[in-house]
């Protein structure tokens, strides 16, 4: 079935030809390569890893970064790319977000020349996969409390600790690991062959099933000093990576919402109940559809403006929080309503909405929970932090 995107406020007319072409290419790719197989991948609980070379070939990895075979997209194009991927599945978009914003971005921004030229071309082509280890089992919203430690030795750094909820963890060739040192939190590159390094898949997930989620165990991993990201000093640097990823999520959520909306508009026009009338003719159904269209349109305007602020170098973390917080919550609400409108059929994976709904529960929680973004905004408004 063809996808019918939402463009109620003609935001398309604000896009450049290149931005539209990039969006359309990714849309075409998702329709042809992702959607036909995502149900199987979701059922199997496996990330469709064989898509990775195609991501690389198309140039979807590396986002706004330039040089080292990275695509050098502007913020709008990068946002649109995330939107289209998440129209397929949040897990697929998560892969690209992690690779681009949480692995390539810190290497590009905080890495040495040698680290950049070794890893970025491989990561951009999809020939290497990366993951980002910040969160720990007991330190999610409060990463500053992390227990993972890196100790300076004569022949490098000795890393010890556990990282939890790590996307791409078991697939990764390289992990960006944040650890506490005598000089504060620092970022390190840990290669998968490092002795003492293990990635254990987390199973039993009812959400993001087509995504690889792992626990990383660092049991006295000795890495050379050249694997320390020289400029990645201080927790703030880790949070800079998260800001990149959150920007992509604010756009991605729109894709998931549009997929649900499109599915349910078609469904309610075709589903007949009471006097042979389509359920779309009922007021309560129309109220839900009107809500969805309104929230998608608002989310599109937020995301577009946010991208323009990013391109002008005027974006703030609080602005990113507002967009991530709003767009993900509204996408989740749209997915829930879509599932409801699909009736009993909606609990089957013949339809996408419940898969998106389940995925978005994770998206609401990761990359800063909904409540943490509320507190970031509260801090911004009042100047008074309320995190603890």
């Amino acid at each position: 079935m063809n996808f019918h995107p939402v463009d109620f406020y003609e935001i398309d007319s604000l896009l450049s030809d290149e931005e539209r072409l990039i969006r359309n290419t990714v849309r075409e790719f998702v329709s042809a390569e992702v959607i036909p197989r995502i149900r199987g991948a979701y059922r199997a609980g496996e990330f469709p890893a064989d898509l990775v070379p195609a991501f690389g070939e198309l140039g979807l990895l590396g986002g706004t970064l330039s040089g080292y075979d990275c695509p050098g997209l502007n913020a709008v194009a990068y946002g649109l790319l995330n939107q289209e991927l998440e129209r397929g599945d949040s897990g697929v978009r998560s892969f690209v977000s992690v690779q681009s914003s949480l692995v390539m971005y810190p290497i590009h921004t905080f890495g040495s020349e040698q680290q950049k030229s070794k890893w970025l071309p491989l990561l951009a082509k999809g020939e290497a996969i990366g993951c980002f280890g910040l969160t720990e089992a007991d330190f999610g919203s409060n990463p500053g409390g992390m227990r993972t430690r890196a100790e300076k030795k004569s022949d490098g750094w000795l890393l010890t600790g556990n990282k939890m909820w790590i996307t791409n963890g078991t697939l990764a060739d390289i992990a960006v690991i944040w650890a506490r040192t005598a000089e504060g939190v620092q970022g390190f590159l840990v290669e998968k062959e490092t002795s003492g390094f293990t990635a254990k898949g987390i199973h039993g997930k009812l959400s993001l099933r087509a995504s690889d989620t792992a626990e990383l165990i660092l049991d006295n991993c000795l890495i050379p000093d050249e694997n320390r990201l020289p400029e990645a000093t201080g927790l703030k640097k880790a949070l800079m990576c998260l800001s990149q990823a959150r920007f992509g999520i604010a756009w991605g959520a729109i894709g998931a919402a549009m997929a649900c909306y499109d599915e349910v508009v078609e469904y309610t026009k075709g589903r007949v109940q009471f006097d042979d009338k389509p359920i779309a003719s009922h007021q309560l159904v129309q109220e839900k559809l009107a809500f969805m269209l309104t929230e998608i349109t608002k989310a599109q305007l937020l995301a577009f403006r946010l991208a323009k602020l990013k391109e002008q170098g005027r974006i703030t973390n609080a602005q990113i929080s507002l967009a991530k917080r709003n767009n993900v919550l509204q996408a989740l609400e749209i997915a829930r309503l879509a599932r409801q409108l699909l009736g009993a059929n909606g609990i089957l994976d013949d339809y996408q909405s419940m898969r998106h709904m389940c995925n978005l529960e994770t998206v609401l929680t990761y990359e800063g929970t909904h409540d943490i973004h509320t507190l970031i905004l509260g801090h911004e408004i009042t100047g008074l932090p309320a995190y603890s």
Partner: protein
Amino acid sequence: MKIIVCMKQVPVKDSLLKIKDDNSWVHEDELNYEINESDHYALETALRLKEAHGGEVVILTMGPERVKEAIKQGLAKGADRALYINNADFTSIDPMTNAKVLAAAISPETPDLVLAGLQTDDNGSGQTGVILAENLGLPHTSIVMEIEKLDNGIKVKRELESGWFQWIELPLPALLTIQSGINQIRYATIKGIMMAKKKEVKELALSDLGLSGADVAAGSTGLDFQKVYVPEKTKQALILEGDPKDVAEQLADKLKNEAKVF
């Protein structure tokens, strides 16, 4: 090998077409457009020939400003440059008129090969490509599925009916119309999209092609376009009665003289 690929932009496949009140055409403002399906395959075929044998792929398209998007998509996939005929001052659904204009743009390029999609998804006449070959004085083959380069020309596989195929050898230059579904179409890459804006798109007006308004005037080729309308539903069922011999005779008579099927 210098290859020209004729591409057309058509409304996306499941578009809801709304006919204008005066039945002159459909409302185009509300439609979204895409590259005609078999033209995609023509472009892919051209790109593969270029990759195997070297040369140049040039896109040729005609239409209003919006078709520049199709051109960019083609350039992003790997075509080297494009010729764009802006038809703001004339529109025609007449294959003969369109072929005349396209031929005028192709002639000075002296290509080795001209590829066109088999037919367009909107008008679907399947005529423009073959008339274009006649206008250019080129040998042509339609419904082509495979092309092999020979030392002195090409060998092509042509689709017949009922699963039958035909291999034909042609000298170059030649024109081929390409069947859909014959290869795996590539995606435009982001790198390709970024590079496309640096590629040449030569814009041509009728006067640049040595043509005037009279050459493309409606009805100039003898085709009289009357109106666009939704097919009218008619229900006609005739039940023949009588003994089987009479009924068979009546049926044969109607098939021969009314339906004219034999």
